[in-house]
């Protein structure tokens, strides 16, 4: 251990300005805190509903008394495919989002010794964000979605998010930094900086999309209908879209659910424990390694897919390297509590933190493990992933948010917490709830993964019938319902406790006036600590003093602009290393001559597939794994997805893969299966879609859809001429409807939504076995073989 007692020996030279008086804005923190817990309860409730939807279909069939719950499985706006995005968006953006805003607004002011720069921006941020949440709550059940996980919200909402995040939140935060009265920035602020700049970058680049309404107005020459204003397509397609999506998706976990919560931990944990943070130099090294390494890890969501192998390998390796940077945060959190464990035993708030940080440690070990390809080949598409994210979201984000809420409540409402017993009860409900949830779903996930790949001794799949593997999960699904319900009850107790504490607030909040000198323009950094290196060159001594001992970082900590630029360099350079080759190297996506654009009707059907959220349960990506090709057919090739805006590879197989669904069933089977899957597969847990057989298909909008694809580079030829696409769609619909009748199917399907979805489903994955078109437009570069 190096120096001791050098604390006061180098007095920095600085000029300070006049003493200033200021009060903190706690009103906005109170609002964010309430919003977080209220929306948290909503998010948990929707989660429990979704969990019930997966568990209940067999019970509905056998228990007459439950039949009134049938609506959970056949109501268009309540179906799982729409409820699941509502749940994830509410949990991430409404619950965790508002919690992290509360944490940032409370701690930033105190760490900067400055009120937020603009109360107006604080309030615009608060109300703007709640408006976004309400828009999400309305639009997602209506099926208005971009079809990319955690980036479902349509473009007008995306624009709102960009404005609120950058212009309201970002500007307010960075101006507060600029006006701060504390010379150096504490580690929590570093994490907030990384959060704000990175989320802005991720959000903008993943959500670049082409709106239907604009295409209709400026290309098609058509007045958009109301719904057309809320439909857009990703500008990226197939492999590239998948890459961008998981670059975004993974880093949403990193920079929305990890970095701000580490910042939260760094402020609220030492506050609650009344202990110094364990290690400043660990803060430095784990902050920078986390920020730099996290960005690369996204492709681990796409192992064994049509993504080029080098990208997938980088995703795995950077995830493995991320293990220790993540644990740096856990170590700093848990070791801060050294000598305070007696307090932990007595104080439920600290218990929330300890268990929360422990879940963080478990998730960030599990994450690298799941990203190892061989583990991932088992875990991918199973509930194992779902258990993993819930250990993180409920355990880490949830418990930390609750711990913060209980610590803040008496301070914000200036009244003692209403019931300490309820706080303790909440802690146990939440902890046991999470334990039931994740242990149940781990077991279910691994079980199903093993069943999918099991062969018997004669070389045939041991569980060839997919629904058999689903039935095995039922007990685990009910355990999840119980665990989730306990967690929900805990959330309700928290809300109750907050409301009652708030009700006991003083008539007028007391506002403490603080005093601190303004920062003067001059600051001379204290000299570096002496080096212990003696027998070496001056250069080595210099490096040791300035860099290895972290002196340079202390200098950065008083320069927010420079600090932010280094964060930007870290995240941009890491991103570009993967993005540039993915987009520029043609051989990453070998084209296949026989793969042609979707017909206009199929395109319309694809948009229905997206709107119904089919990708929430069905993947469209068969991996080159023997058990998988045995079950679903030939593995997926990158060139098959070049016209897929957005990609629909999915991440979970609650139902079977659909990549080669085309032609596997008759038209009649598909239509009856959509009407009610259980009339064909009694054990199916898929929702019923009777509305698709009744709702009229909007043929008029199809021209705009085709024009939009053409603008994105899909070769549609003549079909972009006015009305041609609609004609073609009607012709195909008639043909399909006629065949349906010939198959003794329903007679009046020709103008219904179901016919378009049928067209799309019957097309899926069939191009690869067709001969290439008669007159090849381009020299044939066709290759069905995938190279890395």
């Amino acid at each position: 251990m190096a120096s001791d007692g050098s604390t006061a020996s180098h007095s920095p030279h600085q000029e300070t300005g006049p003493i200033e008086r200021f009060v903190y804005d706690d009103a906005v923190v109170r609002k964010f805190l309430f919003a977080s817990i209220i929306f948290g309860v909503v998010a948990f409730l929707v989660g429990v509903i979704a969990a019930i939807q997966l568990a209940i279909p067999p019970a509905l069939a056998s228990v007459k008394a439950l039949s009134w719950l049938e609506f959970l499985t056949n109501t268009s706006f309540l179906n799982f495919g729409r409820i699941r995005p509502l749940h994830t968006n509410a949990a991430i953006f409404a619950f965790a989002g508002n919690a992290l805003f509360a944490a940032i607004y409370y701690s930033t002011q105190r760490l900067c010794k400055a009120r937020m720069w603009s109360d107006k921006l604080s309030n615009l941020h608060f109300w703007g964000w709640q408006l976004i949440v309400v828009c999400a709550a309305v639009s997602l059940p209506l099926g208005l979605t971009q079809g990319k996980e955690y980036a479902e919200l349509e473009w007008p909402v995306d624009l709102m998010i960009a404005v609120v995040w950058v212009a309201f939140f970002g500007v307010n935060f960075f101006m507060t930094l600029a006006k701060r009265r504390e010379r150096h920035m504490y580690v929590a602020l570093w994490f907030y900086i990384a959060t704000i700049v990175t989320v802005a970058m991720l959000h903008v680049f993943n959500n670049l999309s082409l709106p239907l309404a604009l295409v209709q107005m400026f290309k098609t020459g058509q007045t958009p209908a109301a719904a057309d204003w809320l439909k857009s397509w990703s500008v990226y397609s197939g492999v590239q879209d998948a890459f961008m999506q998981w670059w975004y998706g993974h880093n949403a976990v990193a920079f929305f659910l990890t970095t701000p919560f580490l910042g939260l931990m760094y402020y609220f944990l030492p506050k609650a424990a009344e202990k110094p943070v364990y290690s400043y130099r660990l803060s430095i090294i784990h902050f920078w390694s986390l920020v730099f390494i996290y960005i690369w890890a996204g492709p681990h969501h796409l192992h064994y897919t049509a993504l080029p192998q080098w990208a997938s390998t980088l995703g795995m390796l950077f995830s493995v390297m991320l293990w220790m940077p993540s644990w740096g945060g856990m170590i700093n959190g848990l070791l801060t509590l050294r000598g305070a464990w007696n307090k932990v035993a007595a104080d439920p708030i600290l218990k929330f933190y300890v268990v929360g940080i422990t879940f963080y440690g478990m998730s960030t070990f599990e994450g690298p493990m799941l990203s190892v390809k061989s583990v991932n080949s088992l875990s991918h598409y199973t509930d194992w992933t779902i258990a993993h994210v819930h250990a993180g979201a409920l355990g880490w984000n949830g418990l930390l948010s609750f711990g913060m809420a209980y610590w803040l409540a008496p301070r914000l409402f200036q009244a003692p917490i209403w019931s300490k017993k309820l706080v303790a009860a909440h802690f146990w409900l939440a902890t046991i709830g999470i334990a039931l949830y994740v242990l149940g779903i781990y077991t279910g996930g691994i079980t199903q993964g093993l069943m999918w790949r099991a062969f018997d001794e004669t070389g045939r799949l041991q569980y060839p019938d997919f629904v058999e593997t689903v039935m095995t999960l039922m007990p685990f699904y009910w355990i999840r319902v119980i665990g989730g319900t306990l967690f929900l009850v805990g959330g309700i107790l928290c809300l109750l406790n907050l409301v009652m504490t708030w009700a006991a607030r003083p008539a007028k909040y007391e506002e403490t006036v603080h005093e601190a000198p303004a920062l003067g323009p001059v600051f001379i950094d204290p000299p570096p600590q002496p080096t212990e290196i003696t027998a070496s060159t001056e250069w080595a001594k210099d490096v040791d003093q300035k860099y290895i001992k972290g002196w340079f970082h202390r200098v950065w900590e008083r320069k927010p602009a420079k600090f932010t630029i280094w964060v930007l360099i870290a995240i941009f350079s890491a991103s570009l290393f993967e993005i540039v080759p993915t987009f520029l190297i043609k051989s990453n996506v070998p084209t296949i001559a026989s793969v042609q654009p979707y017909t206009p009707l199929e395109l319309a059907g694809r948009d229905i597939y997206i709107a119904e959220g089919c990708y929430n349960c069905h993947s469209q990506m068969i991996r080159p794994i023997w058990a998988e090709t045995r079950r679903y057919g030939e593995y997926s090739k990158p060139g098959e997805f070049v016209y897929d805006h957005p990609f629909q590879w999915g991440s979970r197989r609650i139902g079977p893969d659909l990549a080669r669904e085309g032609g596997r069933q008759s038209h009649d089977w598909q239509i009856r299966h959509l009407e009610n899957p259980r009339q064909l597969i009694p054990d199916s847990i898929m929702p019923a879609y009777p509305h698709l057989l009744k709702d009229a298909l909007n043929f008029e909008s199809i021209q705009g859809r085709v024009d939009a694809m053409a603008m994105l580079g899909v070769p549609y030829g003549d079909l972009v001429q006015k009305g041609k696409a609609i004609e073609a769609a009607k012709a195909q619909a008639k043909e399909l409807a006629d065949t349906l009748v010939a198959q003794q199917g329903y007679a009046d399907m020709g103008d219904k939504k179901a016919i378009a979805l049928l067209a799309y489903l019957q097309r899926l994955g069939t191009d690869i076995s067709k001969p290439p078109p008669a007159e090849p437009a381009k020299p044939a570069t066709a290759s069905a073989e995938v190279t890395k």
Partner: protein
Amino acid sequence: MAVKDFLSDHEYDGIREYDNPTPGWWHAIFIATIAFSFFYFVYWEMNPRASTPQSRWAAAQTAEYKRIFSSVGDLQNDEATILKMMGNEQMLNVAQGFYQSTCIQCHGKDGGGINGVNLTDDNYKNVKKLDDIFNVITNGANAGVMPSWKNQFNQNERVILAAYVATLRGTKPAAPKAPEGDPIPPWPAPAK
């Protein structure tokens, strides 16, 4: 332990920081993961002889086909071959796997028929003799109600699947669908 802690002069809103060294095991594992990553990348991404998921899949396919079909070789789609396969327990077993992953959604687990025809009775719509089963599986039938499976299964697989389907005739399903089509004579007796 606390004695050795070095408390820095940093203080923010009452929060102080120790400047404890990072644990040695932390450094060791971090460096180990970086070293592992370096070698892993070089081996798997810069080595032209490293296998790929696709090459391993192709090897698995070859090995499986060899294992399953080595005893019978390439199968003809004629009546005699199908008849022979109807007596080959091993092949029927493999084909049952195909049937269960592909056919049961329409024809039922025991062949009794759901949306598709009952395969257990003596009535057939598109089959007059054994090799017609192969043809229906290959080309589909009934305006696409029965899809074509020639892209999903190779010839050998379709031949043994036809044999398996033929053996369903005469079994007793739990909920048989009414017969469709015309009765046809029984399958020929197995050779020998």
